[in-house]
Each structure stands twice: as structure tokens, then as C-alpha cells.
């Protein structure tokens, strides 16, 4: 009854596709509705001052991209070459640093830098160190997927030192270009860190209009130049993310291969490792330094509900978005749906929250939707989709047809085949996709503030509201709890996946 199985499968995927399209299109329709309701006053979008701001934002984003790439590439070489034994723990710690939001990093750095003066460089330092974590995660996958025969050939003609930058770096192009494009978009859209360091950027200008009560249609209108620049970066991201793989199939380049460094390599690796070490010290020790055990205990006790809700609000949407992307990418040929999946990256959290309220508040079921947190999960799923997609896309596009055919002999039912063969086979990219979505959502505040159910609270929102009081003991204690809580989850998940890998091989 293979035809029946195929038919059922097709129906199910049509339904999944339709659901995904509805999920994605509702906010778009609602935004259009908002614009039509409010109307647009056609003021000038760009004047000299705004062009300057846009240029400054682009310069900041590019600088963050370059500095974080330099740090992560070189530090990763050191971690995998010299600290191989501890690399699991170091990478887990990097995961944790990624999962705690940029403004928590910024809080620590404020105590080192102060607030006033040199806003550009302070913002650059905080964002570069923070985004090095994403680069490390993506590049470390690249290190596992390099074809060693190319390196062998290259070593015949070139010295090892040149091989690192001229050959390996070029071979990692899809990874670093994708992560750089992603970082570029995130930095262009971020206003929280520039505002902490009093740096005027284009996104901060938009936020200023938002906080002064300007209509949404006008904010969207002002945002157009930013959206266009981000669209350009997005097209680069789409082009190169196709070529990324997260299979962890090959040998790790630097842990199993004895490449010699030249002086430039050594200096670069030393500086980068030092910066990463400084980030660990500043972020972890700063919080531990300013909070005592009693305060930690009290804060932990009074925040258990917030911790569980934060976990739930990030975990469930990450699972949903990973499932959606996996099923669509693996079994659907609807190109349009795949394009729609990545568009949410261009919509700000505030706009998403308002658009969902605008749409669903027309129905009586709204109270249940907001009260049960369904709208929060919805928004988070929506926001996580593009991040998960970028990670999963490349790996899943390189379909192993032989595996699927073998699977059909072993197991004809496609659901069981999915559970027994495909998911275990792709467990690393699935985990990577889930984790990037999860990491992003743990720090999300813009849509959460609008959609959180009455009576619930998230750790990210709580620490952000406490920022008002500077780096007090309470903020530090919350920071420590966030770090410990999410690092425990990270390590547990990583251990489970690592252990299961033996069986999946």
C-alpha cells in the first residue's frame, strides 16, 4: 500500500505547508491593515542626518562582522588545536554565552568601560565579542566538514601558515559569509546596546520614534531604508547558507591535523584567545563578584516560576520551528513557502506583537489565546523560523537518496521512517537549528512584552526591567541564575546528543 502511504504523506505535507503559510501571512496582513487604518504621511525618509546615521550603522555592523570573524576564527583554531580535551566544555560555555542576551554582556562590560564616551568602540567591543559566539558555533561546524584531500594538495604547494588563511578560510566561505550576513542584519536592527552606550544609530532613531508614540505606519515608513539594506544582506545569506552543512561527518581539521603556524597566525590566535578569555572573565566573574550566596539563593527561590516559563516560552517554539523547517525542507518542494520562512527576520518584535494583537483581538477567543500564552508561542515560533532555517537548510539540501531508499526497505511507513531513520541521521543539524532558535528566543523581549500572558514573567524581561537600577546585586544575581540555568540545560542537551550519536552512526 505504498501509494496510500505516499498519498497520506502528501496530504499531511500540504496541510503543514498551509499552516506555515497562515502562520507567516497573518502578521503581514495585519501590518497592511494597520498601515491602511493609520494612513501614511509622506514626509521625507532620508535627509543628510539620517543618511549619516545609516552610514554609521552600516559601518558599525561591518566592523562587528570583521572583528568577530577575526576573533572567532583564530580562537577556534586555538580551542580545537591546543585545548582539544576541554573543547566540549569550552564550546558548551560558548553556547551559554550565546544564549544569554547581548544586553547582559553589555551590563558586564559597562562595569569595565563605564557608560560615557567612545560609544562606537564600546558598542563594537560588546557586539563583536557577543557575536563571536555565533561565529564560533557556525565555523566549528565548518571545521568538521572540510575535505581533507584539498588540504593535503594545498600543503604540497604552500606553507602551512598560508594554508590556514588562503585555503582553509576560503573553503569555509559559505560558513563565514552566512554568519557574517546574519550578524550584519542583527547588528543593523539592534538598538539596545547602542542606546546603553549612547551611540546614535538608525535603529535607535526608529526606536526613539516608537517610544515617543509615533504611529506604526510612519515607523514602518522610516524603517524602509534599513529594511532594504537588510534585504541585501538577506539575499547573501540565502545564497551562501545553502552550502553550509552541519553533519559533523568529517574529522575536525585542527584537532586531527598537524598544521604549523607562522608568526602572523600565532599572534592572531593569541590575541583572539585572549579576547575570548576576557569575555568569559568579564561576563561570568562580574556577576559572581557582585552577588553573594544569600542573595543568589533568595533570587533563585523567588524566580523559579519565571525560569520555568522562560524555558517553556523558548523551548516549545524552538521545537515547533525546527519541526516545521525540517518537514518542509526535507519533504516539500514549495519554493515560495521556503522564501516566506526567512522573511520574519525583517520584522521587528514590536511590530510583530502589535500585528498579532491587532488581528486576533477581533475574535472572542483572544482572551484564551493571550491567557494561555499561545500568541507568545506563535510569535516566538515566527521569530525563530529564519534562524532555524539557515542552520538546517544546507545540510538538508544535500539529501542522501541511498539512505532514504534503504530506509524504505527497512521501514515503509513514512512516519516511523521519519522517527527511526531521518531524525536520528540528521540529529546534529536538528539540534543545531533548535539550539540557535532557542538561544535567540531566550533573550527576545520586544514581542514578549506585548504578548506575555497576565500573571506570567520571563527572566529576560525581568532583568531588562531591573536595568533601571544599574548593576545592583539583584541584577547580578539574576545574571548568575540565567547563566547557570541555561548552561545546565545546554550541557545536558549536548551530553544527551553526544551520547546518542554512537547509536545513530
Amino acid at each position, binding site marked *: 500500500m505504498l501509494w496510500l502511504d505516499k498519498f497520506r504523506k502528501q496530504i499531511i505535507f500540504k496541510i503543514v505547508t498551509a499552516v506555515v503559510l497562515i502562520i507567516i501571512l497573518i502578521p503581514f496582513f495585519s501590518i497592511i491593515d494597520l498601515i491602511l487604518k493609520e494612513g501614511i504621511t509622506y514626509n521625507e525618509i532620508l535627509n543628510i542626518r539620517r543618511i549619516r546615521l545609516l552610514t554609521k550603522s552600516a559601518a558599525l555592523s561591518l566592523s562587528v562582522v570583521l572583528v568577530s570573524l577575526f576573533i572567532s576564527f583564530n580562537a577556534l583554531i586555538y580551542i580545537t588545536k591546543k585545548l582539544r580535551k576541554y573543547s566540549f566544555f569550552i564550546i558548551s560555555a560558548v553556547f551559554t554565552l550565546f544564549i544569554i542576551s547581548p544586553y547582559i554582556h553589555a551590563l558586564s562590560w559597562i562595569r569595565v568601560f563605564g557608560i560615557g564616551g567612545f560609544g562606537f568602540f564600546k558598542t563594537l567591543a560588546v557586539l563583536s565579542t557577543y557575536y563571536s559566539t555565533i561565529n564560533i558555533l557556525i565555523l566549528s561546524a565548518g571545521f568538521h566538514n572540510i575535505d581533507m584531500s584539498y588540504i593535503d594538495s594545498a600543503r604540497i604547494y604552500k606553507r602551512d601558515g598560508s594554508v590556514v588563511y588562503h585555503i582553509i578560510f576560503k573553503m569555509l566561505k559559505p560558513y563565514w559569509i552566512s554568519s557574517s550576513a546574519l550578524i550584519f542584519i542583527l547588528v543593523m536592527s539592534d538598538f539596545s546596546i547602542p542606546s546603553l552606550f549612547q551611540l546614535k544609530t538608525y535603529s535607535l532613531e526608529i526606536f526613539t520614534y516608537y517610544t515617543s508614540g509615533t504611529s506604526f505606519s510612519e515607523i514602518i515608513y522610516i524603517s524602509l531604508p534599513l529594511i532594504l539594506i537588510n534585504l541585501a544582506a538577506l539575499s547573501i545569506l540565502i545564497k551562501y547558507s545553502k552550502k553550509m552543512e552541519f553533519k559533523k561527518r568529517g574529522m575536525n581539521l585542527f584537532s586531527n591535523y598537524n598544521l604549523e603556524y607562522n608568526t602572523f597566525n600565532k599572534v592572531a590566535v593569541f590575541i583572539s584567545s585572549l579576547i575570548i578569555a576576557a569575555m568569559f572573565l568579564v561576563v561570568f566573574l562580574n556577576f559572581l563578584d557582585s552577588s553573594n550566596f544569600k542573595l543568589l539563593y533568595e533570587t533563585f527561590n523567588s524566580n523559579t516560576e519565571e525560569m520555568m516559563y522562560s524555558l517553556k516560552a523558548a523551548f516549545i517554539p524552538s521545537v515547533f520551528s525546527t519541526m516545521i523547517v525540517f518537514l518542509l525542507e526535507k519533504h516539500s518542494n514549495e519554493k515560495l513557502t521556503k522564501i516566506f520562512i526567512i522573511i520574519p527576520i525583517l520584522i521587528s518584535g514590536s511590530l510583530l506583537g502589535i500585528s498579532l494583537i491587532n488581528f486576533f*483581538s477581533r475574535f472572542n477567543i483572544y482572551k484564551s489565546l493571550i491567557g494561555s500564552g499561545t500568541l507568545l508561542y506563535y510569535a516566538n515560533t515566527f521569530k525563530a523560523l529564519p534562524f532555524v532555517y539557515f542552520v538546517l537548510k544546507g545540510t538538508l539540501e544535500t539529501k542522501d537518496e541511498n539512505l532514504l531508499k534503504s530506509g524504505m526497505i527497512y521501514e515503509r511507513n513514512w512516519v516511523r521512517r521519519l522517527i527511526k531513520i531521518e531524525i536520528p541521521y540528521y540529529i546534529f543539524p536538528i539540534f543545531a537549528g533548535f539550539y540557535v532558535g532557542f538561544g535567540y528566543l531566550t533573550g527576545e523581549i520586544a514581542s514578549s512584552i506585548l504578548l506575555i500572558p497576565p500573571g506570567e514573567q520571563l527572566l529576560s524581561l525581568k532583568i531588562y526591567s*531591573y536595568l533601571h537600577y544599574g548593576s545592583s546585586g539583584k541584577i547580578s544575581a539574576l545574571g548568575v541564575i540565567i547563566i547557570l540555568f541555561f548552561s545546565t540545560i545546554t550541557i545536558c542537551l549536548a551530553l544527551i546528543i553526544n551520547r546518542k550519536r554512537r547509536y545513530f552512526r
Partner: protein
Amino acid sequence: MKRIMIYIFVILLFLSACSGDISDEKENKELVVYTSVDQHIAEEILNDFENETGIKVLPVYDIEASKTTGLANRLISEKDNPQGDVFWSSEIIMTLKLREEGVFQPYVSEESANIPKSYKDKDGYWTGFGGRARVMIVNKNIFKDGQYPSSVYDLTNEKYKDYKKALAYPMFGTTLTHLFVMSQNWSIDEAVQYFVDAENNNTLIVDGNSVVRDLVASGEVDFGITDTDDAFAAVKDGKPVEVLYLDQDSIGTLVIPNTVGLINECTNTEEGKVFIDYILKKETEDKLIEMGFIDISLNNDETDLKFLECDFQEAYDNSEELLEEIQNALVR
């Protein structure tokens, strides 16, 4: 079959984790309070209210960075299907905007009898209580002679040109309120020009009042204008700062009230009224003063503080042109 049961069980478990308590049955009285008051302050007051009245409070908080805008936007979007019962704000401008949008219904609490007329809506859509004053925060290590600047005009005064000063952006929060009120006494052009002159006179225009406090407390800036709750937090932390009410020998200082309003067509109207009565009580104001969140009782005639004369509603009504001007002149 066994496997199918396991799959169904896992799916049900997952779905149950996704859903919250969507039961409409109300065994206990409930109240949804939207508040932009700092969470650690609001939490304590709401807990006291729960203990005293037995009404369970489901709070929705805002974050400092969004300057009440997040909650205000949520309230406006939910206008046709309101989820909140009461809005308790730490300032007044967004409350006036919400009143204009038709978010509130009138309720005049008996507890508001002693509150001055300019601090409550004439039709009862909102009521002000417990105020925070605008103050000058000065780093004592810089002004060792004790001759501290204390006037709003000192930011534009040539005498202080060489001193580093700070002021929050007048695009949101209490500084926006300050700008609105200033424009009542001056022309719009003069009010806008004040901020431009201040910036040209070595004044850093920063992200919020807490940033002004932090900059002065750390010595990165010599003095600046902020609110009492921020300033007194620095004093409490033992920072070398002095706090002075603005213009006590001339026009007086602006006092910005907390505001509370009952949301139109809300589910728990009676509980909402009970809460408004509770929050307007003199005892609650005293507790907020004790906590350092406010420092002026509006329920009390006996005060030596000189208030800046103002009509908030009139200031708000004339604000559209002013906002446009200040956006053009000063937006970052």
C-alpha cells in the same frame, strides 16, 4: 498499538505543556493590572493588595527601556477586546494618550477627594497620586564649595559651559512631560531651543534618567536633571551625589504623578475599582515614599515644596506640533 499509544501520550504531553490555564471558571476574584511601574516596586504593592483584599492580581509589566510605550500600545491594540482591568502608570503622558484613544472608563474614587484638581481628570478617566519631582543631581566631588547648580536654566547657563552635564532625551518619559509643561510657559520655539542650547552648552543628551544618574554618580558627568526615584537610589547606594529640587526660589519644580485608570469594558470592573481605591489611599502613597519610588504625597496639603504650575491636559492637547518640532531638532 502500544507504540501508537506512546506517540499519542507524548503528543498529548507536549500539547498540555503548550497550553496554560485557559479555564474561564473563576473560583477566586481576579484582577489584571497593566503597570509601567518598576517591577520590584509594583510587586510589593500588588502583593500587599492581594493579602489585604484576597483578590488575585495578574500583573503585566513594562520594561524601563520602552518607557511605557509597550504597554500603552498593547492597551490601544486591545481596545476592542480588553484584557486588562486597570492601568497603573509611573507617569502621565501615556495616560493622557490612552484617555484620548478611549481606553479608559470614568471612575471617581472617594480616596481622590484630597488630590489637587490639576492632578486628576475632570471627568474621572484617570487619577494622579504620589509624585516624583524633577531634581538636579550633582557630583559632590566636583562642587566642593557646596555651591550647587539647582535651576533648569543652569544647563544653558554660560557659567557652567565647562562643566559636563546630562539630560535625558525629551522624546519620552518624564523629560517629555517636562518639555510639554515648559512649552506652556514658553512658546514652542523657546521650549525646543532650550534643549538645543543645552546640547550646545556641553550637555550630553542621554537615553534615560537612570543614565543621567549613573553618569553623575560615576563622575563621568558633573551634574544633570533627573527624577527623584533615580537620584535617591544613588544616594541610597552611597554615591557622592547631592540632590536638589529644581528652581525652589523661582518657578518651582515639576512634580510628575503616578496615574491610574479603569479600563473601558474590562472584565473585573468591581475589583478594578477596589484596586484604584487601594492605590489612592494615603497609606499606599506613604509606602511608596518609604520604598523611595516617590517622594511627594499628593494626598497631603502640608508640603514646603514649590510646585511648577501646570495643566497636564492642556499641555498634552497642544503637544502635537511641539513633538514634531523637537523630533526635527533633536532626534538622535
